């Protein structure tokens, strides 16, 4: 007590930053990140938190409608949606005139207008070997002439930004034409990717290796101050062209209520965004309850504290005016089996396409209780994933039901039928009498230990001996890329909200990249290639359903769950809806003057 008096006695909460003198609201939004950012150079980051800040600072050519679900592409800096010709090989966009970069010393006092060349430059940067961009795959092997530029750079040691690239043209100051090596109807999603915002070459060259601390864009916010791994302060960009809140709310009552309050307002309405890095759940939870933060969505560990079992906000929180925005992340979590007959030089007991092997995989999948995973490990904060494309993503089929459901009794019968006999120790052998040992790989974390236990219990229930292989995450990824893991739990979150981003995970040529199961199926691949040539629609959806059934019949994956995202909002936060792929919703919301504070 004495120390509290000497030091900073905090009995009176600090004045809310939205209560500015004179009654004029000075709108400051306070949010948290649960992990530190890595920087704000769009080509150099891959983490969610850096990406969120980048999204607020830079402008991609296209973006997504704030309220439409599944997410819908709309023009951003482009005057209109791209003109797609040559059966999906050529994309041409015209950008709006009179858009300027935020002032920066790199511009030497001049106003710097945004041009199509800035986008061409931004795209080139992804493949510059010096940048070692985690998102280089967005453009690798796609744009005519760009990979050749990379090859030349490897020979000469210099990546030539001035060299002509046939597939990346700017016929005039405001037109960008991208020519692809192969038809790709999803390339518009790449152009809407928040990291593919325009960057000014002068800025990148001025700051060199420190470009990650000097983000300069044309977007709604600019970086005001930055203490690495601690605090990021953004301020509304005074030169921002502005947007009008004019989204179609559809029939959703919450959206309609939002539209009633927000329609016609000029964005952004929040003047300042303060992001604090708080790694610990207790700190975030207490800070939110004390009113020190306005939006908090990283509280899965304590969700039962504020939510009822049926996913509603507990009455005591609702009574305080706190609001809950609940959505399902655009992700799938799944267990995969290595489909190869051999792993290295050894026989893989779960791989191959013989009936016995399929029966074994099916039995393992049927023995795993996904409901327990959701109830115990996720604390109820997830839904069962039945389809490889999650909700909110184009191509999702809400009515689809997987063939593979929890049924240990049938799983045991299946193993008996296909000759996996139990020995005196209660564990089964292979049909040829050899010992059967299934290896499951995971990281040495507390969370993964829970998965290990559930897996062990499941396999014990069908008499299969399990070995847990522990390794660090990068080593597991390395082994996965060499097709050397037998079984592992994996997750995939949407890079862009289209089914293709998920269905490619089982495409044969993607083995040793994203296809961790190393699944090779001519039937699947043929349909996948056909789907790539189709726009989102019933015909492509039919192909996706067929592909999913093929995968289930072969039992390559057991889809487990997709997690809920529960965002808690203080009473004065107006207009918030979690978007599946846009994360800096700050642009679209408002803060009402706080009452009774």
């Amino acid at each position: 007590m004495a120390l509290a008096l000497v030091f900073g006695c905090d009995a009176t909460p600090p004045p809310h930053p939205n209560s500015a003198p004179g009654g004029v609201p000075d709108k400051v939004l306070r949010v948290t990140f649960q992990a530190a950012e890595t920087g704000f150079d769009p080509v150099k980051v891959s983490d969610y938190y850096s990406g969120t800040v980048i999204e607020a600072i830079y402008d991609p050519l296209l973006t997504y409608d704030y309220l439409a679900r599944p997410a819908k592409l709309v023009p951003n800096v482009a005057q209109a949606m791209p003109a797609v010709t040559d059966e999906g090989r050529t994309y041409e966009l015209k950008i709006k005139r009179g858009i300027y970069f935020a002032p920066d010393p790199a511009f030497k006092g001049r106003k710097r207008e945004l041009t199509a060349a800035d986008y061409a430059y931004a795209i080139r940067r992804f493949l510059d070997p010096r940048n070692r961009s985690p998102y280089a795959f967005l453009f690798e092997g796609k744009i005519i002439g760009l990979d050749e530029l990379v090859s030349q750079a490897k020979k000469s040691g210099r990546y030539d930004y001035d060299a002509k690239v046939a597939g990346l043209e700017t016929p005039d100051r405001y037109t960008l034409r991208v020519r692809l090596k192969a038809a790709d109807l999803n390339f518009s999603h790449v152009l809407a990717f928040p990291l593919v915002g325009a960057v000014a070459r002068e800025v990148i060259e001025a700051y060199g290796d420190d470009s990650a601390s000097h983000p300069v864009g044309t977007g709604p916010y600019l970086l005001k101050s930055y203490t690495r791994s601690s605090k990021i302060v953004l301020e509304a960009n005074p030169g921002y062209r502005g947007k009008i809140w004019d989204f179609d709310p559809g029939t959703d009552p919450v959206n309609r209520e939002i539209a009633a309050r927000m329609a016609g307002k000029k964005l952004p309405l929040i003047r300042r965004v303060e992001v604090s890095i708080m790694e610990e759940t207790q700190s975030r939870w207490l800070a939110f309850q004390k009113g020190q933060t306005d939006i908090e969505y990283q509280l899965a560990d304590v969700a039962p504290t504020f939510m009822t079992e049926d996913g509603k906000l507990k009455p005591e929180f609702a009574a305080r005016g706190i609001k809950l925005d609940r959505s399902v992340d655009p992700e799938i979590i799944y267990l995969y089996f290595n489909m190869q007959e051999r792993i290295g030089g050894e026989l893989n007991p779960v791989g191959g396409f013989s009936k016995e092997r399929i029966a074994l995989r099916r039995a393992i999948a049927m023995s795993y209780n996904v409901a327990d995973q959701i109830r115990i490990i996720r604390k109820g904060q997830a839904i069962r994933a039945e389809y490889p494309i999650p909700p909110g993503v184009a191509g999702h089929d809400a009515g689809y039901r997987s063939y593979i459901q929890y049924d240990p009794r049938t799983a045991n019968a299946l193993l008996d039928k296909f000759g996996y006999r139990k020995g005196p120790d209660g564990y089964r052998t292979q049909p040829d009498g050899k010992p059967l040992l299934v290896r499951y790989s995971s990281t040495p974390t507390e969370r993964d230990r829970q998965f290990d236990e559930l897996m062990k219990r499941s396999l014990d229930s069908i008499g299969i001996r399990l070995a847990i292989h522990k390794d660090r995450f990068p080593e597991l990824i390395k082994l996965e890329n060499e097709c050397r893991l037998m079984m592992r739990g994996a997750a995939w979150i949407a890079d862009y909200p289209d089914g293709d981003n998920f269905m490619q995970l089982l495409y044969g040529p993607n083995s040793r990249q994203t296809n961790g199961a190393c699944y090779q199926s001519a039937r699947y691949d043929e349909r996948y290639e056909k789907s790539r040539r189709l726009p989102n629609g019933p015909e492509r959806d039919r192909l996706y359903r067929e592909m999913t059934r093929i995968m289930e019949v072969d039992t390559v994956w057991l889809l487990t769950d997709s997690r809920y995202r529960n965002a808690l909002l203080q009473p004065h936060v107006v207009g918030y809806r979690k978007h599946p792929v846009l994360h800096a919703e700050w642009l679209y919301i408002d803060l009402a003057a706080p009452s009774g504070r």
Partner: protein
Amino acid sequence: MPAYITRRVLQFVPTLLGVMLLVFGLFSWIGGDPAYLLVGKIPNPEQIENIRRQLGVDQPYYVQFWIFVKQVASGDFGASWATNERVSAIFATRLGPSLIVLLPMLAVSTLLAMAAAMLVAHVRGSLTDRTIMIGCTVGQSISILVYILVLQYVLAYRLGWFPVQGWGNGLAENLLRYSALPIIVGVVVSLAPDIRLYRSFFLEEINQDYIRTARAKGMSETRVMWVHVLRNAAIPIVTNVMIQLPGLLAGAFLIERFFSIPGIGREVILAVERSDFPVIKAVTVYVAIATMIINLLADLLYKAVDPRVELK
């Protein structure tokens, strides 16, 4: 004395080399391939090779170790693999916040522990002594995590005496407002083991012949305790405090994480999570060097205070 100092400084070299070999070996053995952490969601072999080449982890181990030696010699550990921030800048910006919390914490806990230890040593065997010692044993067996969770909840959230977490821009704001609760937590955590340790130092002095002589000569108990016992017991106490400091800088990560203090400890954990070897290397080497220097200073201090101590 100069010969002694020279000899000790020369001993730094093999010790540091041992530390470097240990951290290099451990990282190479269990650290995992950093290229797979940095490559992103869709890796390809060319990109992995490119990253390995840029980080230098494609080189033979002896070449990598030689680069490490040169980094230690020049004091330039390059840039963080994860953020590209210069390692020197990481230290320059994170050291201040750590010291703002740790120095007052050490000072307060040392003074309180000394006072309590002197009291219980003076009344050794009494009910007060036993009660405090039992309390210390119990307090010492409780995890620091429990102290943080409970004190943050009660003092910051329930009673509202302190901010739940945060960090500002000015020294006064950080020291008086944001560091107060972390300092209290640190003091509470260290009090129990410190009292037990310091009590033993005081008891050792109280049982010395010169104290018996002082008492026999009629010196007041207050003077005996506050002048003679305290002055001599203070030497191992100060040594102990100094030795703690380098380890505390890196070890205070839990306090820094819970109270959002942008200090060195938090950065160390981040570096480990990200397999950020340049930062891990720098922290290990700096802590080792600081520990060696402080040990040397402590030995010199012994000599300065007690001329009977012989430096060999």
